[in-house]
């Protein structure tokens, strides 16, 4: 399956078109917005990325990404139907609108030179709800990373469970968590990136079972959705409740990283925790370069990235 289709290229938008920010309502050149990886140049709002866009943002060579179980799709275990619309018919609509077969894309690739297993969940597909396919593909990715003893990065996002799969959906929390138990027992690194929104069963399973949790600015993160909480307690929640920044303050998230710095940050974390890959030196660190080079394993541990390869480039 090709990840980067015609649709993705079209979404870049021709020059001269305008993008209106969902958050501040200001307009910006579509092209400028796309070049900033869909971060509003006016207010810094991080618009959701599709899975292909995220993969393009993070991998050294997105086209070299080798997918895991790319053609796995759900059957209809509950024969779920609502108002005459069957679940397969419902799914077909999302498949057509998103160009995806399911809500997650998984595979192997390189980030700042470090080989990793990567899973990216796409909100466009049925609100990134977790059904059996999402659970199965995440589990296969965890197992692939364990098999190859590679670090695991999951870019998380989910509105919650996939109602149409009932308890089979809930059990994906158990399945993915069990896989991560083995993964962690094997001493391997898992970095979770929480993007907008990361909620319910996904947060209460694989999204939070990470060594390091990085969140995108403003992302909604939590277990129970805001609307339900407000219904129950019968009052409005504070504006920033359940934001990435709020969750960091409450001790649940390690770092909130702006999207432009995300790839560098992940590269640095991969290198620090596992020795893998090559962190790109920040200016502050170049001053320290001498002492790094004095270390016997310094140069080997940190080979330069091929400069001709644009970091975090778009495809």
């Amino acid at each position: 399956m090709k990840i980067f289709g015609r649709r993705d290229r079209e979404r870049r938008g021709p020059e001269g078109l305008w993008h209106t920010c969902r958050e501040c309502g200001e307009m910006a050149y579509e092209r400028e917005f796309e070049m900033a990886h869909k971060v509003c140049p006016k207010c810094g709002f991080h618009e959701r990325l599709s899975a292909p866009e995220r993969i393009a943002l993070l991998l050294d060579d997105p086209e070299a990404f080798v997918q895991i179980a790319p053609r796995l799709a759900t059957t209809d275990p509950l024969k779920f139907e609502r108002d005459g619309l069957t679940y397969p018919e419902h799914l077909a609509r999302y498949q057509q609108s998103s160009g995806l077969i399911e809500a997650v894309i998984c595979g192997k690739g390189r980030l700042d030179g470090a080989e990793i297993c990567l899973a990216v969940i796409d909100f466009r597909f049925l609100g990134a709800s977790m059904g059996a396919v999402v659970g199965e593909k995440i589990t296969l990715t965890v197992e692939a990373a364990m098999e190859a003893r590679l670090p695991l990065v999951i870019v998380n996002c989910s509105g919650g469970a996939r109602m149409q799969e009932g308890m089979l959906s809930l059990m994906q929390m158990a399945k993915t968590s069990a896989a991560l138990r083995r993964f962690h027992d094997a001493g391997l690194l898992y970095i979770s990136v929480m993007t907008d929104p990361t909620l319910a069963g996904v947060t209460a399973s694989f999204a939070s079972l990470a060594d390091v949790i990085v969140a995108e600015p403003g992302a909604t993160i939590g277990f129970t959705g805001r609307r339900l909480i407000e219904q129950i307690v019968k009052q409005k929640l504070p504006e920033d409740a359940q934001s990435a920044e709020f969750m960091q303050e409450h001790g649940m998230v390690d770092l909130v990283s702006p999207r432009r710095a995300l790839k560098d940050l992940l590269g640095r974390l991969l290198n620090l925790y596992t020795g893998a890959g090559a962190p790109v030196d920040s200016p502050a660190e170049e001053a320290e370069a001498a002492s790094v080079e004095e270390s016997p394993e310094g140069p080997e541990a940190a080979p330069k990235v091929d400069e001709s390869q644009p970091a975090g480039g778009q495809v």
Partner: protein
Amino acid sequence: MATLEFERELVKLREDLEEIREDRGFKGDREARISELEFELKARTTRVFAELTPWDKVQLARHPDRPHALDFIDLILTDFVEMHGDRHFGDDPAVVGGPAKLAGQRVMVIGHQKGRDTRENVRRNFGMASPEGFRKARRLMVQAEKFGMPVVTLLDIPGASPVLEAEERGQAWAIADNLLEMAGLRVPIVVVVIGEGGSGGALALGIGDRILMLEHTVYSVASPEGAASIVWRDHKFAPEAAAALKLTPPDLIELGIVDRIVPEPPGGAHIDFDAAAELLVGALEDELAALAGRDIDALVAARYEKFRSMGRGAVAPV
């Protein structure tokens, strides 16, 4: 005593039967009348229960008179000592647990705990556990592992506490940590749904080697009301959602999620706690005995495979 709509005729019959049993001055063949009424009650109970809709079954699982975790603990265990606290923030009365003996064998029992009256329900937050409750449970599981005690969990929760304070203290993190812990816990775990198995809050005590459901309980990815809000965009479609979600014991046996249904006395566990407890203790003794002999590595590997395979039938390449 609360009475559900479909229970009314049965309640009436039971009252008649009780009355006549105590009425020593009954004119006519009292014994025959009693037999007649007993037969009638049995037949009608069978008929009423055979005709229950999934939504009725949800009501039954939530029946306020059902035995709760501490009731079962009282009836099926001895020497129970309730332990408190997560050692970080608080003690959550919506989760109870501690060491006890089941037929002389040491076990760690942990359950969601609903209240019986309003006052107790307020204290126990209507059984909606907070992060502290899940963390207390985890602490006790780790203890059970350390001291080689099998774990028995009793599930009965509408859902994890849905308030901002629970979010602030990491509700999702607390649940996820339990899933991770139970997946690899090196002692046998038997899970029993004793009432309402609601969503992630239920699953947080729900990973085990054997998953049992009492006959008149449900286990669901979300409350039917919640699922209706999401899928039908109106919580009034809860009965439709209840039917669609496949949340009854036979449904879940068929989906490969549940291993065994524990029968309840006629009319439901709330009609006769002792009989319900006796049926449960029998099932637990069976299950624990079968697990006791297993090599622990093999047991944990089988537990992995059990959950690893869930939903396998729901995926296929296209």
